[in-house]
Structure formats: C-alpha cells, structure tokens
C-alpha cells in the first residue's frame, strides 16, 4: 500500500513534475530515441494481381473483377485480388465436395497427418515471408506476426496433424466421421492464425474447406494457397475465396455446405446463425468480447501492468478477447493507474515493419473511424481521457494507446466492443462486486485475474462467465488450449481436443 493519501496521489498523477520509475512526468514523450529497425520487405514478392484458389488452381473471378488491398500503415494499395462471385463460390464448393468424396476424404488418417505435418513445416520454413506479408497487409507489428501469429499458425497444423490418425482416441467408444465440406469465414485481426485455427482441425478430421478471408487481409491466405500447392495437397481440399462479406453469406446459405465456422463480430455471427436456420449444418461461432481484467490489491502490480498493457494494446487492441475493461480494486487504483500511464509513455506506435514497434496500424480506415467514434462517446459521457504524448506517423491509420478512467458501467466504452487500443478503467471494493461487474455484459469470451492468493484465483476463475480465464497472465494462446466463448461470445471451441469436436459426426462403433 502506498504511504500517501489519495489526494496527494491524485495530484501527483496530474503533475508534470511527478517522479516515477522511468523518471518521466505524465504525458511526456519517451526521452530516448530508437534508431529505425525496419524488417526487410525483400523476402516478400507481391504480384500485381491474385486470383482465387479453387480446385488447386489459381483462377480469376468469373466476371474478372478485382479489388485492392491496402497497407494500413502507408495507405498504399498493395495489389489487386479477385473478387469472388456466387458462381465462383459454387465452383469452390463443388471442388471441395469432389475432394471430400474422392481424394482427401478417402485418405487414411495417417496419410492426412503427413500432409498436415508438411504444411506445418513449410509454414516454419517460410515464416519470415509470412510474417512480413502479414504485417504489411494487416498493420500488426512485425514482432507480433513474427513471434506470435506465424509460429502459432504452424503449431496449430502441427498439433492437429497428430490427431488425424488418432481420432478413435479423442472420442472413446465412438467413431468420428467428417462432416463434409466446411465453409470458414475468418476476420482481419489474425488473418493467418485464424486460417490455421479453422483449416487444421477441419482437414485433420477429413473434411474439405472453402475459406473466405476478410476483405482487408487476403494476402497471407493467398500465400497459404501456395503452401498447399508446395505440399501437394489434393486439389479441392482447400479452396480460398477472396471477396466481400456477401460471398461469405452465400457460402453460409449454400446447400452444398455441411458445416459453417465463423470468427468475427457478434452482430454478423447472429446473421450467420440465422443463415443456417432450419438446416442440419453444423455451426461454431467465435464472436466478440468485452473482457474484464481484474486486479486485486495483493497483485504483483508491475506484472499486472505488463499484463494489462499486453491485454489491451497487443495487436492494437484488435483482439476479440482483449482485456478492454480494467477492474481495479479501489485501494490500489491510484498507484496502478500511475504505473500504467508511466508504462504507456514507453509504448512505441508506428511502422509495423519496425522491429521496435509495439502498436502498429489500425487495420482499416473504417475501423479507425469506429474507434474514434467510440472514444469521442467516452469523452462525451464524462469518462476521464488519457493518451501518452507519442508521435504518430503522418500517413496511415494510427491511434494512440488510450486510457479512460472514472468509467461507469453504463458508458458505451464499458459496454461495447471497441476493437482498438482503448482501455476503460472501473473500480470495485469486494470480490463479489468484481464478479458482478466482470459478468455484466452479454459477452463471455475471456477474463483476467491478478492476485497472489491461489484460492482467490480458483474461486474467481470459477465465477467468471468466460471461456478463457488468464490468471496472472493475459492473451496467451496455444494449439492445445481450447478457446471460445460463453453467452453471446459464441459457441464451440477451437484448439485442443475440443476443437476437433466441431468437425466430426460421432457414430456408434
């Protein structure tokens, strides 16, 4: 406990001369310079034009139309990709069906496994190429695409490769059969990683897939098509359709589809659930979140600060499970906020390809506008606004790490998913109040707990209505670890043995 009264503490937080562990005052820029450390773009060759990937071949859209994909850090159009039409979707579904019936679906599990191991290996071999391309197309910092997205994507294929010939042991007493053709629709925040989460378990179980990447981040999926070719994957096993959301909905309602898997907003998730109404299609939804990161007074505060920063500023806060609500116990809120502001002043916002960058570019102009609008609502509703004084690049879609204190539960910034680097701080006095506030949302994807007391961790973990609970850590992912939501954050799990369940039909032995 700090030995100062809350009044003097508050003055310190607001004062430019206040001492702190970094020797920085509030709102000051970091006093030392970082030399630019850009990752080379040379490893990536971006062609002028990309087609769809159907039946193992790259083809133009039926009507030849294309659309541009933009580097959000430079606002430059990187390339043109084919804009799939419903006719293309029909062809992709037919190709997938044929492969499911005659090639991929006929392979023994141990043969499927070897293909998936091959894919994992190729992803590892070409990891830097994928990382650079991912950062260019999505705006995420190279250190995240290099150290998180790409290695985890490879690890997912590796993990599920081993399941392909062991399904009998995943469902004791039952025989697991593939569902058939899966339509998979993925978001723009982790383009390659979400592709891996979707494709790896589907293929392991013997399904074939038609995947639609997000329209702002199609490039790593198209590079993955090249991996499928290098791996000699039977044509039609994986098909990739780039295009607008309407192509996704066309797939969802397509009679040739047996299973739909979607990651994205709760609003679109509900639309997709309506789209499969009245059919026997399988459906898994991984939707939005508004996670609470709960810090108790006995927490290791410096570790908690790192966890909070990782929780909300990782990937620009464009994470469905982001810890976007900080619930701080009243007795420590002041030192915690002070440490947090201090830490924010050291965050480097800028060029995603710079190896020192912590927060890259917001994925699109539309998303930047949405974040801006919600932040304005936070100010208008009376929450206290704070941003560190960091420089932003002159071009590109950037947003400073943002902190709101004195947030009420009724504020939009405490209720709505912002999907940006914006943290809302609320307070609580008792564990019961923390539980009440943490669960007071229609979402239920993740939660964070910071305390040094083991029994409290287990009790809080049990009371969180959330599919993933991080205790004294946050935003950790692993292919063996099931991930997915409670309540309106969706249903079904991805990762682990549980992730297989979404792609099989169980029959009697």
């Amino acid at each position, binding site marked *: 406990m700090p030995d100062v009264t809350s009044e003097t503490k508050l003055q310190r937080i607001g004062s430019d001369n206040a001492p702190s562990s970094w020797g920085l005052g509030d709102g000051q820029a970091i006093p030392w310079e970082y030399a630019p450390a850009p990752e080379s773009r040379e490893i990536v060759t971006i062609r002028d034009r990309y087609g769809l990937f159907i039946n193992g071949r790259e083809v133009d859209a039926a009507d030849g139309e294309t659309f541009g994909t933009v580097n959000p850090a430079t606002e430059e159009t990187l390339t043109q990709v084919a804009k799939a039409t419903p006719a293309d979707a029909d062809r992709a579904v037919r190709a997938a069906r044929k492969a499911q019936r005659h090639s991929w679906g006929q392979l023994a599990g141990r043969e499927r496994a070897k293909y998936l191991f091959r894919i994992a290996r190729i992803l590892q071999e070409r990891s830097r190429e994928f990382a650079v391309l991912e950062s260019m197309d999505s705006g995420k910092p190279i250190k995240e695409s290099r150290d998180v997205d790409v290695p985890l994507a490879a690890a997912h294929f590796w993990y599920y490769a081993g399941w392909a010939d062991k399904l009998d042991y995943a469902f004791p007493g039952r025989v697991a059969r593939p569902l058939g053709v899966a339509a998979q629709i993925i978001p723009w925040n982790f383009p390659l990683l979400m592709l891996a989460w979707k494709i790896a378990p589907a293929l392991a179980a013997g399904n074939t897939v038609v995947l639609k990447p997000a329209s702002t981040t199609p490039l790593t999926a198209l590079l993955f098509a090249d991996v499928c070719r290098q791996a000699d994957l039977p044509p039609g096993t994986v098909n990739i359709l780039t295009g607008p959301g309407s192509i996704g909905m066309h797939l969802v309602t397509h009679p040739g589809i047996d299973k739909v898997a979607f990651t994205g907003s709760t609003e679109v998730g509900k639309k997709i659930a*309506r789209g499969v109404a009245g059919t*026997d299609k399988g459906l898994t939804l991984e939707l939005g979140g508004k996670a609470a990161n709960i810090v108790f007074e006995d927490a290791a505060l410096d570790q908690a600060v790192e966890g909070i920063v990782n929780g909300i500023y990782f990937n620009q806060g464009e994470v469905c499970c982001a810890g976007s609500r900080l619930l701080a116990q009243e007795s420590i809120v002041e030192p915690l906020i002070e440490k947090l502001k201090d830490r924010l002043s050291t965050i480097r916002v800028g060029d995603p390809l710079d190896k020192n960058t912590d927060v890259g570019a917001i994925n699109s102009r539309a998303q930047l506008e949405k974040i801006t609008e919600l932040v304005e609502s936070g100010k208008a509703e009376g929450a206290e606004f704070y941003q560190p004084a960091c420089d932003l690049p002159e071009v590109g879609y950037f947003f400073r790490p943002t902190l709101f204190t004195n947030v009420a539960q009724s504020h939009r910034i405490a209720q709505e998913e912002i999907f940006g680097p914006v943290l809302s701080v609320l307070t609580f006095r008792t564990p019961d109040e923390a539980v009440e506030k943490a669960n007071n949302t229609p979402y239920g994807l993740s939660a964070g707990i910071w305390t040094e007391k083991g029994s409290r961790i287990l009790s809080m973990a049990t009371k969180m209505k959330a599919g*993933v609970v*991080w*205790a*004294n850590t946050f935003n950790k992912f*692993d292919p063996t*670890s099931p991930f997915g939501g409670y309540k309106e954050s969706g249903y079904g799990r991805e990762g*682990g043995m549980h992730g297989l369940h979404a792609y099989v039909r169980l029959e009697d032995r």
Partner: protein
Amino acid sequence: MASRTPQPKGEAAARARVSSRAVQKAADRAAAPRIEVRKTYKLYIGGAFPRTESGRSYLVSAKDGTPLANACRGSRKDLRDAVRAARQAFPGWAARSAMNRGQILYRVAELMEGRRDQFVEEVAAAEGLRPDRARPLVDRAIDRWVWYAGWADKIAQVLGSSNPVAASYFNFTIPEPTGVVGIVAPETSSLLGLVSRLAPPLVAGNSVVLITSEKRPLPAVTLSEVLATSDVPGGVVNVITGLKNELVPVLAAHVDVDALDTWGVPDALRTDVDLAAAESVKRIARRPRGVADARFDWTDDRAAERPEWIAAFLEMKTVWHPIGV
C-alpha cells in the same frame, strides 16, 4: 347398526362394540362403488404447482379417444415465470458438488420406483399400450435416471483436460453448466423420451424449463410431483403443459434461456425456432439428422444414452496460470 342387542359391559366391551361398527361400515361401502378422487394436472414452477395464470385448459385423451384429464394450457406468462424460477435456481444447483447432484438425481429414480404402478397406468393410457408393454418403458425410464445420475462426478473427467501448452503455464479445461436450458420434450414417448432428454442437462448442473408432449403430457406432470418430493431444489425443473405452437416460439425467443433442446419441436416450427434462438446466440441441441421423433427407439440404450447429450449443455472453460517460483 343401531340394533338393540344386549350391550357387553366394561372397557373391552366398548372397544369391541366400536370395531364391529367399523366392520359393518366397511362392508356397506364395498357394496356401493367408490367415487375415485381425481387428480388435477397442474404446472410445476419454482417448486410449486400453480394452475396456468391464463385459466385455460385443454382436453387430453387416451390414444383410443377416451378423455383422460383437462391439462393446463400454459401461457406466455407461465413460461416467463418458469424461466425466472429457473434462472433463480441455477446458481445454487450449479454450485452443488458433483457427487451431491448425482445422489439427488439417483433419488429421483428411487422415488419413481415407488410410483411404478402409477406411471405404468399413465404411460399405458397416454401411449395406448397394454400395461405389460408400458411397464418396460417405465422401468427403463427409472434405469435411465440411474445411468445419468452416475455421470455427475465423471463427466468432467471425460470431457475436461489438462493441456500441455508450449510455454511455462499450467493450463486446464473444465466443463461448466450453460445455464437455463429450454427443453421441448419428445411428442411420442411420454415418459421414457422425456426422462432421456431431461436428465442430461440436469446432471450437467443446468436448470430447466420443459415443455411437455402436447398430446401425452400427463406422465410429465406426475414426474414433476416426483421431482417436488425429491431433493431436486424448487425451480431447477419447471414443467409447462400446453400447445406447442403457442409455447415453443416464446421459449425460443426468451433471451434469458441460454440453450435449447429442440428434439420435440414440430417440423413446421423448426426454422422459426432456429431464427429466434440466433438472436441471443442460444446453443441448440438438435435431434440427430434423419431421426424421426415418432420412430426413435428410446429403449435402445446405446442410441438413447449419450454423454454427448450432457456435453451439449456444458461450456468448456480454460484457465491459464504461469508456472514459476
């Protein structure tokens, strides 16, 4: 009875006099047919047996057309009350230890055993069966409670996992109940089908709002009387009789219902139920593809007893903690 025969004297004599009168009375009664005390079939909400607030009923007949009883024609308001009761009861039921929940559900089997004859009579009447054909169905329904009760303290071990993540964290996954589950009971199998759908979400720790078979609701009402005298807390199971066309859409659209078992949803309502459920991202457990309610063989243990049906009403929670000193 009032004849003037010589009266014996003393206490013993007085007792003998009274007993001979009772014997005489009983004999008189046997001569006249006894008027049966009929049962009023009511709803079961929050541990109480109210009539429907709507004041409506509908005639339930046996398969051969013989009128059996007036059942409550439950209303939208009754359903809402039932959901409220289920929501209130949920945290307590979910917090019971697995073993305790298992014992409580086993107790339901014990009490059903004691009412075996009553169930046989009701199932026979509802389903148009001879008693000797109804009896195995009742016996199987009792045995099914026993089978599911035993899962209470095992399902977490079968479905949970400890996950070998590639970093220094302890990581485990445990199942937790989803919440309030709406069940639309099978239309054909009045008791065995009903028990087979009711037991899985209950053993998982959910609370339930159940819409009974429309044409064969009476065994379900009797089952609710069993539940009321068992140790299943009030509100954990709520039973509504009535017309499915009226009730099912309300249940499917209720935002405080977390999951639906749509086994007994009439085909004509199927798409609307899915659409309504989508609005609050409800989990849906469907009848398996190609299975007809009327033809499903509930006596086939392999087909009708499945841990997957428990899993359908569980959420998997994964917890991470760093390993360090």
